[in-house]
């Protein structure tokens, strides 16, 4: 049992040492976690790939309003985004058993064309260090995380698309070399 009284200086030192590393390291690659797709089949997150083109992983929930605003806004321009950059969006729902069955009809009714994944016990969310939704990751052609954001405000998708274009461009350049 660990109590406040027994909390010793060792753990203080370690805690601050680790906070220092906050600036130094970061998550770079997608961990391998088995979750589900909307067909109820198992899906290993290490299979998130897009032939060297950009990938977006968007953590959301049916009860999260800014998430829906963001995914609705992107949905309207997703065709253009795909044509221009070849990006694929994986929308990972963290809805738990209360609402997880609702995800599929919810997505269809809104007409979203994203690849939908279900993470009902937040296993993938935890592995990706996500605290709240929305939390969005942008991966380059090599599958490395190059950009993240955690909130959505009206119009943010335009700035986000600039990031995606940058990634698509740098991927093309490295291919040409």
């Amino acid at each position, binding site marked *: 049992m660990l109590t406040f009284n027994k909390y010793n200086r060792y753990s203080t030192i370690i805690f601050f040492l680790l906070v220092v590393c*906050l600036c130094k390291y*970061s998550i*770079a690659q997608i961990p391998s976690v088995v979750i589900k797709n909307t067909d109820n*089949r198992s899906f290993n997150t290490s299979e998130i790939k897009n032939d060297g083109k950009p990938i977006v992983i968007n953590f959301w929930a049916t009860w999260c309003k800014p998430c829906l605003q963001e995914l609705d806004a992107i949905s309207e321009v997703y065709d253009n985004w795909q044509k221009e950059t070849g990006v694929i969006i994986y929308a990972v729902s963290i809805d738990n058993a209360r609402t997880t069955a609702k995800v599929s009809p919810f997505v269809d009714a809104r007409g979203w064309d994203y690849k939908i994944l279900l993470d009902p016990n937040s296993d993938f969310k935890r592995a990706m260090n996500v605290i709240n939704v929305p939390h969005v990751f942008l991966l380059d052609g090599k599958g490395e995380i190059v950009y993240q954001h*955690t909130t959505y405000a009206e119009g943010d998708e335009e700035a986000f698309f600039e990031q995606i274009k940058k990634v698509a461009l740098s991927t093309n350049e490295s291919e040409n070399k």
Partner: protein
Amino acid sequence: MKNLSVSFLLLFIISNYLYAQNDNIGQIHGNFQIEAQYYQDDTLIGAQALPEHFGINSYSNFNYTKEKFSAGVRYEGYFPPLNGYDQRYKGAGIPFKYASYNADIIEITAGNFYEQYGSGLVLRAYEEKNLGYDNTFEGIRIKFNPYQGIYFKCLIGRQRNFWNYSGLVRGIDAELNANELIGKLKESKMQIGLGGSFVSKYQTDQDAVYKYPENVAAGAGRMNISYGKLNFSTEYVYKANDPSFDNGKIYKHGEALLINATYSQKGLGIFFAAKRIDNMSFRSDRSASLSELSINYIPDITKPHTYSMPAMYPYVTQITSEMGMQTEIIYTIKKESKIGGKYGTNISLNYSVANNIQKSPPSDTSIIGVDGTLGYKSDFFALGDEFYFQDFNIQINRKISPDFKTTFMYQNLTYNQDIIHGANNKLTHGMIYTNAFVADMTYKIIKNTAMRVELESLFTEQDYGNWAMAVVELSIPHFFFTIIDQYNFGNPDNNLRVHYYSCAIGFNKGAHRFEVGYGKKRAGVICVGGICRAVPASNGFTLSITSSF
């Protein structure tokens, strides 16, 4: 603790050294969250400052991953816990630590882990920081995937209870997906998945009066069938007799049934859920209650509301007796149509209802619910006479122009506060009937700059009476500014017809977010994913920082 600290320091130094030697030596990543509040006394609204003035909850996760290996720790500090969190969290330490190896067909985790079997009716360990809920296991888990489409998950461990670990839980879960398993079915329109779980807990019996079962087992079976866009899934759990504090020490078995059915096509989604819960409190300690040491999770089947007024009276699953259903229809009216308008309109209709189950005496000579007996008999298909909850709501999202979006909502709610808040022993006001209205308008002023106005009201003759609420929010790149007023204009007590003003400023960049706020907050109930926390009224400053790396 000392040993742990030293070993972790070594791990840190080694990984640091290796990282400098080679870029491909693994990653250290994690996140950091702090929620703090400075409390002021406000006797009018019943806000009490803590003796320490401040409440601080903080969480830091540090993970190391290198190919198939991962390990990590979580530091938690409560100096002291925020008001409304269980004060047994007071203190600091490292309650979560694990190491895991994942070779494709087998994954072994030692230390702490979260897990869910099926929909969680028989076993679910999870964390919900906003509620102060964490029933993580500490033990060993093995996931075994011998063949594509066949999955086993075995575990043994103790459960977290604030700063202690207690109980003993053993479980095995098997899942079979026919479409993954059988080559011919890979592209089939029909999808079939089956699963089964067995969970058992052990607790010694030293009671002088009753002979308690020391081992209590529960078994569950589940099925998921879909054909095209039609989907049906169900899970049933049977639990052996398990006299406990929750069920009044009766020796009856427990049962739970959950059914979900959906249909969808582009522009239309239909969702139906039903459940029956009979004596399904399942904890690793028979004397535990509320959020302590739950092995399973019984989901609410009501809509989780995001707006404040419709969410003022949230439902809480009744784990000992409940029968309920929910249905929701979501429809998008096409763009460029007469009703849909130029940009389309999205409508969702939702209805949910919950009741108790029917109960009758276990024999001709006894009465219902006597401790030490079978307690009661229940007809599986019959409703009881106690009404818990009903929620009808309609929500319309309509885009008026590319720069102007609106959401309107109406809710009619019936809420049995005696039952739903009963467990918290708070003053309750019987049956509450409310009507709530919401209008939410977002206008994009220029690129990246938007103004959002939210107007809400709630009308009721019970409890605290009528409320009105306004939110104004301005967002510019990386910043937002919010002002909120909740006005309890219909409080039966004239002195309590007060404004709850608050304001907040937030900054975010990348995976980092800061928010500071000041103001009064009303007493309420926060619910996330089916469990709830009562939040007392407060007045003061708040600070929130989240950061992932």
